[in-house]
């Protein structure tokens, strides 16, 4: 008891040299925190009070949220140049927020739950599941079409629901998905990845050289796109054009067998833990010989390692038994929520953005292709003029965009069931299970066909299919 009392009544520790004691630090910190609570908690942010256009009160406000573009220059151009000019011309203060691509679903769910948020919400895949929460974007599509002609079929199929006759999103761009390959490595074995058969033939040799093929089979975007595109090249589809599930087919079994062989002969087990960054990192580290990816690989290499960049070339998706049917890598799709506060200016913003898309196309370094091709004049010449080595490297993107880029769910629409299958990564899961011998190809095709039918039926019951 005496000891306890002495402990509690212990005087402040005297520190030689007049240094502050622990207690003093805590006391001061406590006082500081109270100041913070009082002064900091209620302020939106200090920057929020700074007027965007000095000396002039803008009449309206428009709030946009979109991904942090992989080309930082695009965000700088969009936030600091385009949006400011548009805002001044339209007497509107435009506030742009950026989020990580993987957080888009969580943020969208939060805004819908709150029935409050941004006037324009940007998705990177067609968000059919949110159809009931968004306005019909038909009049925006019509206004742009009036000025710029026909919309790309893939953009139409990705944003339109034929059952409800509603545009549930507005696509401003899509991103072609080429094959990226190392010319030096493929040159050594005297081959070029123009068909999946050649890829399989080259795979063991490339892996023996220490440079495997890198096509993911995990729960992430790149794996989704690559596997779905590979399926289409073999004539395997999730649905037909009447939106009926047709997965369980001999073509699906064939593509599953092919992917299993490709993994066994020419890839490493890293592909089961693939992330969106894996293609880029492994390519930049000089490890991969082939990946299916948008141009971020080559653009990053141009900045970091020009010598390596000069050895990377682009090709359309390799040809399969049923053709070269590729997918967009990502699809830019803006939505205007029903609860958006400034629908009028949101619509005008989209019309203006799309009808003059040259700035977006150029500043994204040809990542964003316009959903209305006429919105960017002379695309081919612009691609040819790119200074990257080898000369004309990006010219092929025009051909890929025109001939080898389709919407998820092709030959049908990118409906809510496709959206769910896409966002739950069921396709790469199916491939991974077969590659890891957890299921036979036949068994996997049957099992996933059943799953997909349940998903389609769920959305059919909700009258969205």
């Amino acid at each position, binding site marked *: 008891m005496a000891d306890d009392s002495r402990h509690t009544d212990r005087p402040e520790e005297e520190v030689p040299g007049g240094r502050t004691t622990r207690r003093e630090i805590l006391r001061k910190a406590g006082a500081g925190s109270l100041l*913070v609570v009082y002064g900091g908690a209620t302020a939106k942010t200090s920057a929020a009070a700074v007027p965007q256009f000095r000396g002039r009160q803008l009449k309206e406000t428009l709030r946009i949220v979109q991904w942090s573009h992989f080309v930082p220059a695009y965000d700088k151009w969009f936030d600091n140049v385009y949006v400011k000019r548009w805002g001044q011309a339209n007497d509107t203060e435009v506030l742009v927020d950026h989020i990580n691509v993987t957080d888009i679903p969580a943020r969208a769910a939060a805004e819908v739950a709150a029935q409050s*948020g941004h006037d324009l919400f940007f998705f990177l895949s067609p968000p059919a599941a949110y159809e009931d929460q968004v306005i019909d974007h038909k009049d925006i599509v019509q206004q742009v079409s009036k000025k710029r002609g026909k919309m790309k079929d893939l953009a139409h199929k990705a944003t339109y629901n034929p059952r409800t006759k509603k545009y549930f999103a507005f696509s401003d761009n899509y991103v072609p998905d080429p094959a990226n390959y190392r010319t030096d490595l493929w040159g050594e074995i005297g081959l070029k990845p123009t068909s999946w058969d050649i890829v399989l033939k080259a795979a063991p040799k490339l892996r023996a050289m220490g440079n495997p093929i890198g096509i993911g089979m995990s729960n992430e975007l790149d794996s989704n796109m690559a596997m779905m595109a590979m399926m289409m090249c073999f004539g395997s589809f999730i649905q037909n054009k009447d939106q009926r599930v047709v997965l369980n087919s001999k073509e699906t079994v064939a593509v599953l067998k092919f992917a299993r062989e490709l993994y066994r002969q020419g890839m490493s087990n890293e592909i089961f833990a693939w992330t969106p960054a894996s293609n880029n990192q492994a390519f930049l580290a000089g490890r991969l010989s082939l990946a299916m990816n948008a141009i971020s690989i080559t653009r990053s290499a141009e900045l970091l*390692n020009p010598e390596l960049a000069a050895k990377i070339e682009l090709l359309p998706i390799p040809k399969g038994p049923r053709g070269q049917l590729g997918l967009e890598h990502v699809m830019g799709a803006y939505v205007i929520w029903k609860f958006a506060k400034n629908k009028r200016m949101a619509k005008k913003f989209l019309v203006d953005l799309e009808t003059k898309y040259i700035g977006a196309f150029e500043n994204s370094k040809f990542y964003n292709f316009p959903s209305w091709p006429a919105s960017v004049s002379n695309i081919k010449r612009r691609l040819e003029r790119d200074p990257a080595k080898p000369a004309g490297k990006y010219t092929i993107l025009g051909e890929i965009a025109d001939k080898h880029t389709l919407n998820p769910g092709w030959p049908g629409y990118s409906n809510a069931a496709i959206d769910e299958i896409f966002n739950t990564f069921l396709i790469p899961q199916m491939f991974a299970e077969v590659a890891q011998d957890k299921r036979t190809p036949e068994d996997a095709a049957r099992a996933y066909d059943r799953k997909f039918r349940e998903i389609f039926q769920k959305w059919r019951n909700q009258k969205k299919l």
Partner: protein
Amino acid sequence: MPLRRRDNLLNWLVVGPFAIVLAFPFYWMLQTSLKSELDLYNTENVPFSFGEGSPTLDNYRFLFSDTQYAQWLLNTVLVGLAVVAITLVVSMPAGYALARLSGRWGQSLGVGLFLVYLVPPTLLFLPLSRVIAEVGLQDRLASLILVYPGFTIPFATWLLMGFFKSIPRELEEAALVDGASRLRALIRIVFPISLPGILTVVIFTFSLCVNEFVYAIAFITRSDSKVVSTGIYTELIRGDVFYWGALMAATLIPSIPLALLYNTFLDRFIAGFTGGAFR
């Protein structure tokens, strides 16, 4: 071999590997943050050596000149301090009440309170989004200051409850006999003795705030209102391109003061988690 030297050697053999394993992430962060982008992808130089263009402070320069990192740090500190203050104000009397005044219900209530802490934010962020919108706090730091105590207070109360229980009742009774009110006894006797427990709550609450991600990403999208955990994630990961050097620099900077804080109060922190100094 003398007994003491043998004990020392044994200690080093046990502690040494742990120390290396625990320190390695910090070393990795530091080394990566000092590497040039080109060197980062040179696998021959991973993890122990530097190559072309390294070491460099470019990643730190980028962080402070091309992003709003300083603002995110400030926001994190603001939120952390505010939540610590709220948590202490609520959980200290609550923990005391549960320890002393609630009788046989105290224990059950304490366990119930702790169970609230276990409800994951991934379940709560959707309904809470509605609440935040209703009270008009979207994109404000105040939204986090409002929500974070929801998980810090239950844990802090539960922790302090255990700590207060370890303080002999006789101390308070002596104060009451001497004419002090219960509040005065609490402030003058119980709280000063409980400093290790309170420090534990401060450090733990602050760490929880710095680490929290789901609410921060769901409630705040404005770049200048972000906290460190979401700011670096959204601005230094662009699509499939990761700015690893800047990411590591950005995570290393806040981890240093936290590590120093833990070390400075390590003895009291241990005492706080193990139930007080009276055992």
